[in-house]
């Protein structure tokens, strides 16, 4: 049993390192390149400039060129990785001169930093969750869950292919989930604060954590215990924030400047085609013509909160393992569907709880995970990762079938639709008038699925509650 868990972990590592052999975002595409260059550039900035200057526009830090727009923990991580890179080859991170630097040696270095994050953060955190979900040492449930979570192709294709470090923020969030499942509230709040400070997108997960922790506090019988617990959690969160933000807390404008970098309202409601409600509405009713950017942002916040509220209230009132994971799933889907400035990649935040929910609804969640990869196909195709994306998803499906050989018809229809769309998009070029035809179709179909899953998830939460 243990050896098979080990085998699964190494299989995950093998797939990651094999996907690493492929191309990455922005390879050979000056002047802006892609996320790979963004990460390298952050290393350049953090290694060469003082902490206070990291988020500030200056002659040494052109924020228009991949300016740092993730929270401080990402910056510190870039700093450490940048230092390492500098030790290997100073040209990796030379100020100004290293822009667009790429070489096989550098690729190897960058790829191995992602794999290192997988080994150190993501995979152990997944293992922790799987162990917490299934404490028995018998039975294949744990193996099934762990095997599928480690080889889920969506996260691998984005992190080890496209190039990002979602594994760190997702891993920290998963560690927090594991802590919640074991009832370790303080550890959970610490890890979740770290996750939030690595990527602000972790806000997608924040409401269920908040509801759960608050519920656990209110649940205390004595008022004193309530206050003690609440203040301890508050202290942990605030202290962690304070330590991480200390270089910018000296002056208010500076701190606000960082915040502005993290929440760039000016960038519009969405950039590329993304499988959420606004992009789908935009097909028939052009949002940008009718609404100002600020108005749009308010509409988004309102809709997101309304959509996320029911599941979190249910969680607040009745806190169970399954309820918590369902709330995470529903809330992150609500954020994905309705919030402002959504990226295709952020579906990974909903995929994380979906992976753990495989234990309860294997067939449904498999479909969700496959749709999540499907929704990212246009992005992956741009990075020349279409082949590994398709192959790894099919392989993932087969692996699932190996571990859970059952049958379900509901899924087949969706799978067939997705296969037809993929085949058609490869065979039939989009007409010149609508160059984005296929990405649009893919995002609308994915959006339909996500909406259905959102409704389904909420229903499950309330059915399960009663």
């Amino acid at each position, binding site marked *: 049993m243990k050896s098979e868990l*080990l085998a699964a972990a190494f*299989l995950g590592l093998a797939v990651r390192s094999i996907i690493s052999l492929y191309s990455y975002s922005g390879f050979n595409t000056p002047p802006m390149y892609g996320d790979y260059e963004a990460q390298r550039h952050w290393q350049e900035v953090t290694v060469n400039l003082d902490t206070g200057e990291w988020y500030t526009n200056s002659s040494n830090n052109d924020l228009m060129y991949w300016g740092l727009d993730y929270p401080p923990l990402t910056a510190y991580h870039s700093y450490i990785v940048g230092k390492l890179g500098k030790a290997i080859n100073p040209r990796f991170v030379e100020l100004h001169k290293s822009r667009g630097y790429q070489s096989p040696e550098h690729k190897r270095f960058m790829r191995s930093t992602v794999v290192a994050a997988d080994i150190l953060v993501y995979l152990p955190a997944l293992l922790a969750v799987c162990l917490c979900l299934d404490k028995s040492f018998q039975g294949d449930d744990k193996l099934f869950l762990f095997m599928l979570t480690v080889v889920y192709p969506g996260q691998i294709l984005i992190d080890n292919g496209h190039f990002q470090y979602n594994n760190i923020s997702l891993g920290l969030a998963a560690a927090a989930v594991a802590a919640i499942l074991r009832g370790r509230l303080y550890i959970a709040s610490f890890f979740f604060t770290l996750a939030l400070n690595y990527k602000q997108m972790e806000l997608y997960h924040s409401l269920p954590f908040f509801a759960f922790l608050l519920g656990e506090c209110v649940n205390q019988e004595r008022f004193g215990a309530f206050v003690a617990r609440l203040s301890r959690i508050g202290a942990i969160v605030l202290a962690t924030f304070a330590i991480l933000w200390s270089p910018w807390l000296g002056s208010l404008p500076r701190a606000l400047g960082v915040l502005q970098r993290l929440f760039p309202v000016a960038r519009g409601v969405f950039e590329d085609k993304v499988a959420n409600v606004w992009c789908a509405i935009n097909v028939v009713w052009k949002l940008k013509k009718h609404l100002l950017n600020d108005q749009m942002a308010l509409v988004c916040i309102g809709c997101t909160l309304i959509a996320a509220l029911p599941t979190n209230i249910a969680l607040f009132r009745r806190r169970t393992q399954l309820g918590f994971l369902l709330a995470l799933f529903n809330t992150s889907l609500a954020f994905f569907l309705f919030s402002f400035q959504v990226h295709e990649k952020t579906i990974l935040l909903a995929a994380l709880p979906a992976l753990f929910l495989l234990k309860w609804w294997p067939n449904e969640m498999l479909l969700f995970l496959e749709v999540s990869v499907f929704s990212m196909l246009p992005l992956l195709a741009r990075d020349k990762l279409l082949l590994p994306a398709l192959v790894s998803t099919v392989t993932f499906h087969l692996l699932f079938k190996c571990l859970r050989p059952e049958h379900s018809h509901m899924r087949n229809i969706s799978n067939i639709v997705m296969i037809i769309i993929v085949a058609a998009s490869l065979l039939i070029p989009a007409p010149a008038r609508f160059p984005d035809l296929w990405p649009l179709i893919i995002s609308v179909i994915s959006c339909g699925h996500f909406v259905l899953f959102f409704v389904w998830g909420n229903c499950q939460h309330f059915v399960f509650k009663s």
Partner: protein
Amino acid sequence: MKDLFWHLVGISTGLKILLIPAYHSTDFEVHRNWLAITHSLPLNRWYVEATSEWTLDYPPLFAYFEWLLSQVARYVDPRMLEVSNLGYESKATVYFQRLSVIVTDLVYVLGVRSCLGALGLARDSQQHFAGAMLLLLNVGLIFVDHIHFQYNGFLFGILLLSIGYLIRQRFLWSAFAFAVLLNFKHIFLYMAPAFGVYLLRFYCLEQASVAGMASAMIKLLAVGLSPFAVAFGPFVKQLPEVLARLFPFKRGLTHAYWAPNFWALYNAADKVAASLMRVPGGATSSGLVQEVKHSVLPTITPPMTFILTLVFMLPILVKLFRSSKKQSPLVFLRSVILCSCSSFVFGWHVHEKAILLVLIPLCLLTLVNREDARYSYILAIAGYFSLFPLLFDPDLFIPRYSLYMSYVAMLYGQLYRIFPGFRGFHVWEWLYMLGFLVIPLYEHLLSFVLGLDKRLPFLPLLLTSVYAGLGVLYFFGGYYLYALGLNGGNKAAGGTASVKRKRKTK
């Protein structure tokens, strides 16, 4: 448990496709060159053409196979078919050649299916699943075929088909398949004695009358020789040239990277002795294919290796000849393994890849017998590890270790699933297996810390082959005694350990 065979086929195919952009060795160019030669030149030039240094040195059926591939390659990228276009590797060429390996692996899939059926494993059993996993996702084949680049998959497919026929007692089919296999790649001669003895004993001599024996013999010879006639017929006037290509004894005792066999230890011992006695020179490990002169120990010649190999094959062949009909399939499989292993351990200019000839048939025995499984696990640890030097590209370091670890860990899990209450290993066997962790640690970390990476660049290779060689010899000795029934299969440790010592001091 459902029949998950085809699921596993899909998973392994997926993994192979993902590996397409991985580093490939010069064997890729070797096979491209053969495509070009067979496509562009008349038959009588195939075995004399020498524009590229990678001349055609496989038997004719393989050349025909390359010709067949080239008929498709024409439509993919005709430039890969020019003999003078050395080192050509356009994207289309890479995808074509890689996919050709993946597609021809279908023969391997059929071979696996046939063999597992012949062993009498129910399709929904744990053994069938484990066997399919061990063979279809075999990490050695993935390393050698799908990263390094060769066409072993379909050849092993033919081998497994032949073994399957033999176990099902369809002897002529078995002989035919094996003869075809020899005409694809003559390295399978390693295990030919086992096939020969088995067919002679249980097909020819099993007949009731002398006339029956004679007719069986004639049938067997006719079936067995016809592939040779078809393959070599067109080259009958050039036989010396062809044979010179097939058996290049000008190469040295050991390959550039020492295969983990007896001669690796012999060379190492020579080196140590030379440095102790301050004799200049010592056996080379400099990475060149050349003849080696030993400085202290006697220099080895091809006939000596040949005789040693045959001598070590004899006991198990005798055992096979004298075994009962009921026992014979099991003994046959063990003789195949031990014949291959003898050739691997004592052969002339053995490649590290040849360990697959032992490891793949061993997968079959892993499924049916607890003690065989125990030995096979030790060899798997050493044997698959010894393939690492083939994958020396730094981009492949993490893939190679993680694929290996995943495979051996999964194998370990399967042993406990197949054999409830599996006995496990002795302390020193564990220590030996865990010792393999030290080699990567040295190669990637300690050598740099100690500053030895520049001074002794070949030390990791040497460590790998000598340390894995110890395991191979331990397996060879222990498993041989076990297969002969000399240590009864229980408390194997004492006997095998002494065998190991005996071999080392030889």
